[in-house]
């Protein structure tokens, strides 16, 4: 998701996620929020609503 992070930061995030279950859940929630926000935007562009 945060692919724009510098490599060192990305590795640190991955290592932290490996030991932090709550953070993995948060990351999954963030991915869901991204999917849903984009879906809302695309639907609004096409003129279809939730």
């Amino acid at each position, binding site marked *: 998701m945060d692919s724009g992070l510098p490599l060192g930061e990305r590795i640190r995030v991955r290592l932290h996620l490996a030991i932090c279950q709550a953070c993995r859940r948060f990351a999954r929630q*963030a991915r*869901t*929020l991204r999917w849903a*926000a984009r879906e*809302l*935007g695309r639907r609004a*562009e096409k003129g279809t609503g939730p």
Partner: protein
Amino acid sequence: MAEIRPTNPATTLAAEDLPAFRPALLRYASLQVRDAAVAEDLVQNTLVAALKSIASYRGDAAPQTWLIGILKRQIIDHYRRVTREAPLPAGGASDDAEGDADLLERLFASNGHWVTKPSVWSDPEESLQQEAFLAVLEACLKGLAGQSGRVFALREIMELDAEEICKDLGLSRSNYWVLMHRARLRLRQCVERGWTVERS
């Protein structure tokens, strides 16, 4: 009124057709900006701009897609103006520092550990409850004010890339990441109140 001759003969757009697109444009604008009056103004400006440049419409895209493109530029210009008029405090990445501090205090202990662990959400991408989840998120987005709301909307709804957002809003890369993180924290907290969770 003059009718435009499009490249694709099936797609035409006349000046008198423009008002019919107002509801769709308003819906898109309302996803991006929290203030209903501002959303109305942006749509009005979009229709005026479309009227002025309707001669350039060639039918390469559907009329609504063309109009949304104009609206997107209006939204970005609006955010640029807002940011110029009320820039972020030096070194700060939030225009709601008190609210953010309160949120962070409720989420994290002083040692940095989670106070309440995030729940496991049932996956709306694979569920029949997709529509319900989207409705909850849409309601939550309306409460996501300030610069973090703008950054989240530009990145996740309008799908601009981070570099472009930083340039448009005059943000450093680190401010951008902080604002996105705070937007996600606020949104997930709001969504969790309205969404079925599987606690484990």
